């Protein structure tokens, strides 16, 4: 379980404010621990955030289990609130490799495995009946950068397991373990990808679930397909009118993120222009008032992973710090801005692509600890 040192040391007591709440918080949303506080008295997820996402979506918990969420439902697990941009999976029958779209050579298949979401007989067992057995699907598609992922776990044997995007011209070995892991191979730009698997050793067997082929340079959460490609809509997370009140008067914020992949200037909070979030390169946190930008180098780790970060926007100064590094500070004005979007920009093209474990707004201008 993820824990927040700042929360434990600086929690406040008395006056009806729960002890877990960070000191001075006007709004504290600890998604990972399912704890919510607002000075207005609202302490439920629907009362604090609104969610628009027209599709289903999956999120992972700390045990690695995938959990399915229906449309317009925030994807909150004990890792945090998952916020992603829209994506399309063009790999058909992504869980059922017994379907005829998958061409098997010296490979037997059976839809008899527990899936990465814990569902019975939902994932596929692939067993090699000779060396270099393959299971491939051809996708009719124009040229684009393709990223290939699949949840795989080893069932039998210890031989090499490989994946391809180009019909086997290139085979890339993936590190399969006894537990489901979302494994990937490097992006390839090509038309009509031919995706699939090769089991090098006769008799070896693997379980495969949620095969995914999507545009770009990184994988996202699973998108279920059968007969047709499917799109996961973007997560549009906004503060409700109640919680926006806290954001308007805030002079500081604290966030803990667990980002999977850094894209161009992802947002933690977007204030309809000004924003707080990772620097474009993902080296550390940044705060931008629409005119000037200040960033900071993380004290430890990288931005892909767990990062604690703090921001100050007190009207005249902008400050940020991450993972107990050296703060970045610059003079810059900050109006009383209404936070519009959480984990994305309003046009939904700057998605966090990861989990927001905790987000807190404060009415004072103290830079909170990020150790």
């Amino acid at each position, binding site marked *: 379980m993820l824990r927040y040192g700042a929360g434990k040391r600086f929690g406040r007591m008395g006056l009806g404010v729960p002890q877990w709440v960070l000191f001075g918080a006007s709004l504290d949303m600890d998604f990972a621990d399912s704890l919510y506080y607002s000075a207005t008295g609202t302490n439920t997820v629907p009362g604090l955030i609104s969610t628009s996402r027209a599709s*289903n979506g999956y999120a992972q918990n700390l045990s690695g289990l995938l959990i399915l969420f229906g449309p317009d439902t925030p994807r909150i697990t004990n890792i945090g609130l998952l916020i992603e941009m829209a994506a399309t999976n063009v790999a058909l029958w992504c869980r059922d490799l017994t379907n005829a779209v998958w061409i098997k050579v010296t490979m037997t298949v059976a839809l008899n495995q527990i899936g990465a979401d814990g569902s019975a007989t939902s994932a596929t067992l692939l067993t090699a009946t000779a060396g270099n057995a393959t299971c491939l699907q051809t996708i009719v598609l124009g040229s684009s950068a393709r990223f290939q992922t699949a949840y795989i776990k080893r069932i039998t044997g210890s031989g090499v397991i490989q994946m391809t995007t180009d019909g086997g011209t290139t085979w890339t070995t993936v590190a399969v373990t006894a537990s489901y892991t979302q494994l990937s191979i490097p992006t390839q730009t090509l038309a009509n990808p031919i995706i699939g698997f090769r089991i090098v050793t006769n008799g070896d067997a693997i379980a495969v679930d949620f095969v995914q082929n999507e545009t770009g340079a990184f994988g996202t959460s699973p998108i279920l397909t059968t007969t047709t490609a499917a799109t996961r809509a973007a997560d549009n997370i906004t503060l409700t009118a109640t919680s926006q009140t806290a954001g308007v008067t805030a002079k500081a914020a604290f966030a803990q993120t667990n980002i999977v992949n850094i894209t161009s200037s992802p947002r933690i909070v977007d204030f309809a222009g000004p924003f707080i979030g990772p620097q474009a390169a993902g080296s550390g946190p940044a705060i931008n008032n629409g005119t000037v930008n200040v960033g900071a180098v993380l004290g430890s780790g990288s931005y892909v992973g767990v990062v604690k970060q703090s921001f100050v926007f007190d009207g005249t100064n902008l400050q940020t710090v991450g993972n107990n590094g050296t703060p970045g500070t610059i003079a810059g004005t900050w109006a009383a801005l209404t936070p519009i979007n959480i984990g994305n920009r309003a046009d939904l093209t700057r998605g966090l692509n990861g989990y927001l474990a905790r987000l807190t707004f404060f009415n004072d201008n103290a830079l909170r600890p990020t150790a």
Partner: protein
Amino acid sequence: MSQTDYLFVFADEASAKAALPAYWSANPDFVWDLSRVMSPTGNGATAPFTVYMGTDVLDGYPLSLSLTAVDETIWSIPQCMLEGDRITATILRTRLDAAQMLGISVSPVMAGTAYIFAGQNISLILDQSQHPISDSATGILDS
């Protein structure tokens, strides 16, 4: 929660933008509401939304809009071809004729849908006695 899916076939992007002003933004650049809309332009990691009649790609500017409830204003847009209830996987209303209904399919679908937008033969789930089919409103499908 209910989910209602609408399928449109507009003549072009300008017509679509004019008919659905609440579902796109222009700041900083034009983009559809990616939490609710699939369009032919796609965006980033999304595939272009395409409507097929048989194996032919339909002309025009197809668009899918998903809402949390039936919206009479949206349905009243003449280019709206289908209105479907995702939970029950049924077509609520259509402006397609019977032959068109037999041939239409779309790709991609919104993840979690399991009916007409899944490339199935929608005549199998359309109860025409309860939901009469009218003629095409736009003419695009007739060409």
